[in-house]
């Protein structure tokens, strides 16, 4: 299969205005992925599916990722005036990255026997601007998996034909796979709790949960 850089170039040539970004995977798998902008996502996906050299006709997996707000501390050289003269000092700078939700698609070609190509769609934030375009019109098999991502992560898929909860009941309000989800305190704890379970057990018994 052709390289991701070449796919990116061909997509940007074929879909006018599309902005793609390659996300490097530093691990040994080196499975790099493409971040696609919302406006052109369906057109890009259609191109990937129909292009003669790619024929990515099989969307094998759709999943969600929850990225929390993060603060990265970076040491930087800076020029400052100390005691009347300019000096170079090391300074700590904090880079704040707002959190977002991400939907990841793994694409394969059944016809040509290659893959995967990994697509990512990112939401604007984690709170209320959580929609991404649905790729179900392109790959029909994504329908149930997008519903699952909607259920567990709360990503809203614009253009999905039937966006309802699939695992949890309709009255349920939270999204259990989000990293700030607090599960109901409804189990008795292990006889020898440790780590996270020990912390939970302390709170549980302090609140009289175990009677």
């Amino acid at each position, binding site marked *: 299969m052709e390289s991701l850089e070449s796919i990116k170039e061909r997509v940007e040539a074929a879909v006018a205005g599309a902005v793609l970004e390659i996300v490097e995977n530093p691990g040994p798998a080196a499975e790099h992925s493409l971040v696609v902008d919302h406006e052109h996502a369906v057109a890009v996906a259609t191109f990937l599916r129909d292009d003669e050299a790619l024929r990515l006709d099989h969307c094998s997996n759709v999943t969600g990722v929850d990225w929390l707000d993060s603060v990265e501390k970076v040491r930087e050289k800076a020029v400052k005036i100390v005691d009347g003269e300019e000096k170079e000092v090391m300074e700590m700078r904090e880079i704040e990255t707002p959190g977002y939700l991400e939907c990841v698609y793994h694409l394969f070609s059944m016809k040509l026997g290659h893959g995967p190509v990994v697509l990512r769609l990112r939401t604007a934030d984690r709170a209320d601007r959580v929609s991404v375009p649905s790729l179900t019109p392109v790959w029909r098999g994504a329908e149930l998996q997008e519903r699952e991502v909607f259920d567990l992560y709360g990503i809203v898929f614009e253009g999905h034909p039937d966006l309802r909860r699939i695992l949890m009941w309709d*009255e349920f309000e939270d999204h259990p796979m989000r990293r700030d*989800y607090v*599960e109901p305190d409804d*189990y*008795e704890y292990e006889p020898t709790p440790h780590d996270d379970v020990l912390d939970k057990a302390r709170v549980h018994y302090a609140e009289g949960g175990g009677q």
Partner: protein
Amino acid sequence: MDEGLRNELSKQGIFTTTIEEIYNWGRRNSVWPLQFGLACCAIEMIAASMARYDLARFGAEVFRPSPRQADLMIVAGTVTKKMAPQVIRLYNQMPEPKYVIAMGACAISGGPFKQGYNVLKGIDRFLPVDVHIPGCPPRPEALIHALMTLQQKIGSQKLTGPDRPRHLNAAEPSEFPVPQFGAKDLVPPQNGAVWTPPKLERAE
């Protein structure tokens, strides 16, 4: 009746019994399970009903597809919170006398999914369970053992007096409240009338 006299009579070809004995004998030898499975334990339940393990030897091979015809609910597998109201509704639709076997780690406690957000931590939070079978999944022999335990329990029941079985006691409930789907959890998360949280003694 005196046991010696009874033996003597049976040697002469005269069979004597009591209503209680023949009632319990009939009850315990025709326990028809409800045909439903929730997870992998159901595969072991199916194996137990087939020729190799032959649940028919105990009169319990007639798996009924309707709760109206069933006596025994084998809760075979993980009960998710989304499934729990349906399981309890099925139980409520079964006619008395009715029994429950909680089969496998998930049905008795949530098992490997105990810390999951969507798994009911044991069906005994909502239903009165007669026999618990541990195991993940329990082998068919374990299910047969559970059925034999249930048969012994039925056989030893007195039909009158304060210990009489639930279906002969008008004061005992035959149906249990079905929980509603709430915003965070089932409402109520457990039925306090049948289940109380265990007390764990622990040295800090």
